[in-house]
């Protein structure tokens, strides 16, 4: 059975070039970059080069790049490291649609006595910026807003938000885990103070992340330990993964054009064909301000887990915002925050593409998904009710 992998917002394939670049650093060049001898020193040089590649990809200075273990650590470090630097400030602003790496940290801080403002979104997934303006107060320690949403692909107006936040002199963090590699990022022209990225979302392996910290930003280390990363993150450098991430960022920069042309065209093709072939299908979120690789569609009157398992049976790997897939009983907090009706929220499917996807793969999905939805609708009691209400039999 062939595998059609269209779940790249969950994780991506390690690029062959990335793996190749990493391999010598497991067995041959295993020195500690901090060592005084030549054996460690030569590794330090390669780590520096990787840092330069990441910096180049983000339009940052290499000294502003801190390697971490994952996106979640970067998010945790940015929030907790900032709060630690401003102990007198006890207010945070975030959104209702963040990844749990932000959302659950804020919930935790709420329990610890911090005041948390969560900005809501409208039906299209757009943020209420007036509410943001009103919410910033003297006590605000940090504003953290994701760059792009993992479920819908919605891109938030991060620079506009940055203008508002920085005009008040408040630190500004963004979780750019889903944005990196899909849309251009340039810290030199940005208002962002801190930005998180994750290696495994851009064809590096799992277990490596980055926190960009703009020069002059107050920050206390979250991982307390040695002098590594200029004292901003203790722990011996994960050398092979850092080398891999450097290579992945170099490739991501090269592929950015393709992401926004060929991959975007594939996504649009898939979306248009599914809307055309399957009745009662809707796209979740604003279709304009969206990552080029992501589409979240809802099929009314059927449930997401059932769709995913039938797709999986054909080798197609996607994901869903339905309740049943997560083990929780309520559909995705993102779709609920957007007010997607229950008829649709339970039947949402996310396809997220990468440069490794082909038109043949899209055709395979377009061929097999309509009968799957039809089969489930034939089993669903609500589909018949709906048809009756429409006067069809």
């Amino acid at each position, binding site marked *: 059975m062939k595998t059609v992998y269209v779940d790249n917002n969950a994780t991506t394939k390690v690029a062959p070039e990335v793996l190749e670049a990493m391999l010598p650093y497991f067995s041959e060049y295993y020195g500690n970059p901090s060592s005084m001898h030549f054996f460690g020193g030569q590794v330090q040089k390669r780590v520096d080069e990787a840092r330069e590649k990441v910096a180049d990809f983000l339009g940052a200075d290499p000294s502003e790049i801190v390697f971490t273990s994952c996106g979640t650590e970067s998010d945790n470090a940015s929030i907790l490291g900032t709060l630690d630097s401003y102990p007198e400030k006890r207010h945070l602003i975030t959104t209702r649609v963040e990844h749990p790496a932000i959302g659950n940290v804020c919930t935790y801080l709420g329990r610890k006595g911090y005041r948390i403002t969560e900005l809501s979104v409208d039906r299209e997934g757009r943020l209420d910026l007036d509410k943001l303006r009103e919410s910033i107060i003297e006590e605000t320690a940090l504003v953290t807003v994701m760059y792009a949403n993992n479920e819908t692909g919605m891109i938030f107006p991060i620079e506009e938000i940055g203008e508002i936040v920085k005009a008040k002199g408040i630190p500004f963090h963004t979780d750019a885990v889903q944005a990196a590699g899909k849309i251009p990022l340039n810290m030199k022209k940005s208002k962002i103070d801190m930005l998180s990225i994750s290696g495994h979302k851009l064809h590096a392996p799992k277990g490596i992340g980055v926190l960009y910290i703009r020069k002059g930003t107050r920050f206390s280390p979250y991982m307390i330990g040695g002098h590594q990363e200029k004292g901003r993150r203790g722990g011996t450098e994960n050398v092979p993964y850092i080398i891999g991430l450097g290579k992945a960022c170099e490739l991501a920069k090269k592929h950015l054009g393709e992401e926004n042309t060929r991959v975007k065209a594939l996504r649009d093709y898939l979306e248009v064909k599914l809307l055309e072939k399957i009745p009662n299908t809707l796209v979740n979120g604003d279709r304009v301000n969206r990552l080029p690789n992501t589409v979240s569609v809802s099929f009314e009157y059927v449930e997401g887990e059932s769709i995913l*398992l039938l797709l999986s049976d054909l080798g197609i790997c996607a994901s869903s915002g339905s309740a049943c897939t997560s083990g929780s009983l*309520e559909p995705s907090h993102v779709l609920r925050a957007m007010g997607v009706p229950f008829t649709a929220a339970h039947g949402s499917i996310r396809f997220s593409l990468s440069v490794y996807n082909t038109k043949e793969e899209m055709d395979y999905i377009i061929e097999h998904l309509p009968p799957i939805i039809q089969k489930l609708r034939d089993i*669903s009691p609500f589909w018949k009710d709906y048809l009756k209400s429409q006067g069809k039999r």
Partner: protein
Amino acid sequence: MWDYTEKVKDHFLNPRNVGEIESPDGAGEVGSLACGDALRLTFKLDENKRLKDVKFKTFGCASAIASSSALTEIIKGKTLEEAEKVTNQDIANYLGGLPEEKMHCSVMGREALEAAIANYRGQKVVKEDFEIICKCFGVTDREIIKAVRENDLKTVEQVTYYTKAGGGCGQCHPKIEAIIEKVRKEMEKEAPPPKPEKRKLTNIQKIKLIEETLGREIIPALKADGGDLDLIDIEGNKVLVALRGKCSFCPSSEFTLKQYVETKLREFVSDDIEVEEVRP
């Protein structure tokens, strides 16, 4: 990914008895679009009042569809009195088990059956007669009590897995806790718990008891003869040990293990303990 049995997968991929019977003898519907799953069950009886035809329509995940399909297969050919006795556990067992988080799918099957039989008899299961405990999923005290009793549930989390109650905002957790406590007290009165020495040990209890028994009853005796023993691992009822000191090359070590160590462990821990030696 959920760990579904082959039987669940089969009933999901090839559901039996899908559809809706025109002018049925009984019809029951539970769940809703908002809740994420729903089941509509219809049946017809034959001249002997047996379930001749049963059909279902289900909106929900794989285990909801499989549970519905299993239910129809189980009750076909039964009288209503026989069908009434089918529990959610029977549905889960028929499928070779369900992940605990998905047990509510089997409960939905049982509830739909109940509703359909009540409908046939002209009774009405009126939710208003009972107190709605979980507002998010509209679960009544009656449903929670039934699930706790039939499935021997002990925690709020389990009640959520079986009935969905408490799976939303969480405000009803204290009420659910109170129900569990009340029902379990009633259950204890009805059937006093077996004496503690006969109770089944949890893994942690078993490991502790084995360690205590070895330390108190066995190792001192071995040491007196210049030997010793290390506990290496415990796999179910199999206790893996390594003999040390003089014991490790003693010709009667096999005898020591079986006749002495195993006997003692069977005496103090459990009748089915087996001791095996691990050699370095």
